[in-house]
């Protein structure tokens, strides 16, 4: 049942709910506390597991004394590598849909410790308090081996990873002679940029409630961005058929990438439930949220050469990033630079260093949020060196074809982003000289940066059921991690069938629903939205056929293109008196319901001839206390080109939320390691700083008009990632403008500003 995509198949110009700021349809459940998350589904006889975490970064477990824990009344079992059931042997079996090349971590598999905070035991008890108490009584002894967790110390021991992960493109081959061009350039910038490790830290800690049924089947409530990815992992690892496992994630308390892969609490909960044949919940603690994937620490070099007129003549962007010893995590860091700017001499290089840390994991705009800040800071440095306005410099090197591939962009309204963003921000009033704007003790700075992200699409299936009560239920096994999926899918379905949004229910978060990929990468509107449109198109076609065959010809023989679906009716567009209600059509056909299923595929051919992406121009204002070096972001304007915006309200929230992430990345977020111990030292929310309300100013989001007929039938590109990409550099550039101090190491904390100010 593949709905063949055709270019003319576009969503019509909006007249219905698409493009309107429809309030979040799940808002009421969330503001009343009725939305239940993974650790909140009540189960009679529930047991609670608490994880014991490794105290060393690398080595071997020589002993685990569980006697004291087992002696605590209420403790049911302590699982370690010694009594864990023998499970799947092959790496392939443990690889989930988002796994990079390598050997996935297998919890409690053997006595080896691969990274600090690795789970080494699970205590299961009849209450969470008892489990936590007993976990502290488990005594683990280790034989530590020499570890390495310091990227800077080992940056020269790097390698080129190749295509180690789905969706990853290694950098293109060099163009021209960048080193020579750099040496000959009128003006040169050559600098090193670094960015700290960041942990996702969604507000909901990772949790799984695994319910074992007497017939051996499982119902699993998991914090995941892909119920079917979780199901597939459980089935492969535990040797169960898909029919025996149902995974539910109707509400996910944030994820930002942390739920792309099954995390160890899932394995531990399912293992304990199947072994004990009882329901088990495992909820990680906040410190344990630092025990798995994270945005990898990165060291970059950007070298730019330019003519006096600002045209780039050389562009070199090199990145070295951490991966684990057991897996080869990769992300696209440097390619963006070659895609964004026109330049004949380009070298892009991406390398990895293996460290004794957990494998990194995609985090909001993975790669772009790392690489784009470096090139965008370098462009700002070049603008200053040339005495050219930073917006002008970017426009002088603007490109309408992708220099990496030579292909045109399917659409790219970045010029409009610069123009509208600058206008809204008042950029023309900027005084170019650093330290030229102040208010009392506060130095004021204005910075700008561009952003870019992909516009990917996968394959998905949706089901639609229209009942005689006029209600439409559409479903697909995707997720809503706060992105607005419930709302946006309801709007698309309502638009196609001319129904009010209130008449539509969209179901997600259930592995039994029609196939959908992991929710991430800003591809859900594109992927699942296209499937929703496809299945509603089928329902529409069936309704039209039935109406055309009705006695009395209510549509008077009008063709499919001559009618509109509106207000629960099929209406002859040119003669609106001729109309028939959808429910009358179904009754006349003797149908209690119309049910359809459809799969949608990307426009493969058209896509292969283009580069697709979202773009942004971000303008930021900071105030820096001259004596204390404290930075406040006081204004942000983010202008976004992302195709058609299905819901400007939820989309603006995605963008402004990502701006908050950018503020965190620029100024606050950093997982700090003690490399002597190989362990992160600030693993809680008091010491790992994320932006709080007082850190965040008014954020002005602009969506520029952008039409795209290649991306998908909706013309919509997805906005989860693009909002963060330009923000860290815009803030860093604003700090330079305020202070005259260039800090190239994120996060820009006050010590770095004060230190360089003294220099």
């Amino acid at each position, binding site marked *: 049942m593949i709905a063949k995509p055709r270019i003319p198949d576009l969503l019509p110009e909006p007249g219905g709910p698409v493009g309107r700021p429809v309030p979040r349809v799940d808002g009421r459940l969330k503001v009343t506390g009725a939305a239940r998350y993974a650790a909140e589904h009540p189960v009679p006889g529930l047991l609670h597991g608490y994880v014991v975490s490794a105290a060393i970064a690398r080595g071997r477990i020589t002993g685990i004394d569980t006697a004291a824990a087992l002696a*605590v009344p*209420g403790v049911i079992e302590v699982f370690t590598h010694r009594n864990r059931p023998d499970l799947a042997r092959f790496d392939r079996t443990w690889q989930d849909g988002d796994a990079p090349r390598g050997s996935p971590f297998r919890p409690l598999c053997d006595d080896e410790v691969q990274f600090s905070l690795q789970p080494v035991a699970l205590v299961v008890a009849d209450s969470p308090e008892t489990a936590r108490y007993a976990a502290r009584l488990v005594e683990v002894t280790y034989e530590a081996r020499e570890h390495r967790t310091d990227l800077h110390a080992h940056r020269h021991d790097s390698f080129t990873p190749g295509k180690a992960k789905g969706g990853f493109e290694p950098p293109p081959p060099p163009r021209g002679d960048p080193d020579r061009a750099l040496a000959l350039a009128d003006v040169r910038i050559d600098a090193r940029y670094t960015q700290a490790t960041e942990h996702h830290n969604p507000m909901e800690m990772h949790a799984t409630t695994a319910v074992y049924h007497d017939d051996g089947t499982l119902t699993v409530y998991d914090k995941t961005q892909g119920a079917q990815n979780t199901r597939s992992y459980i089935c492969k690892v535990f040797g169960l058929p898909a029919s025996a496992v149902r995974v539910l994630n109707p509400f*996910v308390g944030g994820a930002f990438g942390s739920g792309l892969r099954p995390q160890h609490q899932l394995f531990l909960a399912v293992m304990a439930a199947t072994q004990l044949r009882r329901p088990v919940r495992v909820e990680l603690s*906040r410190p344990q949220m630092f025990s798995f994937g994270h945005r990898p620490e990165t060291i970059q070099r950007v070298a730019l050469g330019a003519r006096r007129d600002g045209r780039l003549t050389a562009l070199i962007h090199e990145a070295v990033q951490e991966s684990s010893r057991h897996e080869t995590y990769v992300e696209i860091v440097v390619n963006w630079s070659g895609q964004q700017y026109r330049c004949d001499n380009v070298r892009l290089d991406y390398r990895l260093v293996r460290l004794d840390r957990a494998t990194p994991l995609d985090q909001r705009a993975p790669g772009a949020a790392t690489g784009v800040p470096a090139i965008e800071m370098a462009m700002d440095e070049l603008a200053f060196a040339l005495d050219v306005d930073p917006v002008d410099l970017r426009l002088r090197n603007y490109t309408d074809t992708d220099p990496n591939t030579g292909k045109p962009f399917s659409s790219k309204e970045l010029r409009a982003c610069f123009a509208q963003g600058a206008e809204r921000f008042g950029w023309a009033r900027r005084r170019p000289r650093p330290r030229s704007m102040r208010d009392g003790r506060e130095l004021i700075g204005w910075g700008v940066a561009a952003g870019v992200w992909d516009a990917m699409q996968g394959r998905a299936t949706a089901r639609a059921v229209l009942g005689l009560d006029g209600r439409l239920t559409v479903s697909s096994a995707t997720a809503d991690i706060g992105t607005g999926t419930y709302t946006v899918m309801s709007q698309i379905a309502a638009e196609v069938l001319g129904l009010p949004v209130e008449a539509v229910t969209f179901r997600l978060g259930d592995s039994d629903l029609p196939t959908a990929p992991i929710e991430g990468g800003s591809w859900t509107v594109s992927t699942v939205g296209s499937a929703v449109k496809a299945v509603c198109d089928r329902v529409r076609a069936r309704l039209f056929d039935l109406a055309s065959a009705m006695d009395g010809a209510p549509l008077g023989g009008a063709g499919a293109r001559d009618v509109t679906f509106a207000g629960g009716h099929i209406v002859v567009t040119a003669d609106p008196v001729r109309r028939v209600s959808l429910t009358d059509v179904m009754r006349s056909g003797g149908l209690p319901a119309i049910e359809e299923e459809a799969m949608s595929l990307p426009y493969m051919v058209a896509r292969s001839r283009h580069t697709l992406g979202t773009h942004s121009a971000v303008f930021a204002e900071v105030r820096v206390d001259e004596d204390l070096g404290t930075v406040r972001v006081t204004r942000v304007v983010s202008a976004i080109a992302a195709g058609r915006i299905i819901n400007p309200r939820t989309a603006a929230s995605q963008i402004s939320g990502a701006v908050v992430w950018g503020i965190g990345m620029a100024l606050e977020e950093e997982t700090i390691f003690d490399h002597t111990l190989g362990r992160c030292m600030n693993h809680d929310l008091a010491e790992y700083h994320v932006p709080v309300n007082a850190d965040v100013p008014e954020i002005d989001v602009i969506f520029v008009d952008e039409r795209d007929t290649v991306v998908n039938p909706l013309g919509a590109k997805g906005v989860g990632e693009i909002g963060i990409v330009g923000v860290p550099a815009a803030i860093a550039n604003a700090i330079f403008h305020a202070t005259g101090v260039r800090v190239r190491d994120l996060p820009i904390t006050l010590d770095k500003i004060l230190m360089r100010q003294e220099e």
Partner: protein
Amino acid sequence: MPDSPRSTRPAPPPEPVAVTLTVNGAERTLKIAPWTSLLDALRLHLDLTGTKKGCDHGQCGACTVLVDGRRINACLTLAVMQEGRSVTTVEGLARGDALHPLQEAFIACDALQCGYCTPGQLCSAAGLLAEGKARSDDDIRELMSGNICRCGAYPGIVAAIRSVMNRRATDGDAP
């Protein structure tokens, strides 16, 4: 190295005790171990899972509830310490089907995304309104900074609280 049982036996978990709380207007008596936090008592023993656990260390504010009208972190107090007190959770903000003005405003201003911090934000905002200290948007930002929203819905949260504050000022109610 072989495992060796420890010589000292661990202390057993504490025996349950009776605690009586008024939760969302109804008197509830629980038999719970005294080491149970108010947060776990609400979530696990009363099935009021609207109050969220985001850190269990008083660092994120997701567990904010009102005790005798004052906002507190439910993870930083034991249920037994609240004996006899009146606890309002997010489930107790609405009056039947009629949402609390803050709940309405949160939906209208899209002051939430994943929704996980939302109950704590709402209870905290209700506490803030009752305190009557906030006069400006910056006051709201400062006084709501104990409630982390990782989705970054802060601008919407400030707008929602401001709209309720403004309406109350116009209606002549207490701020």
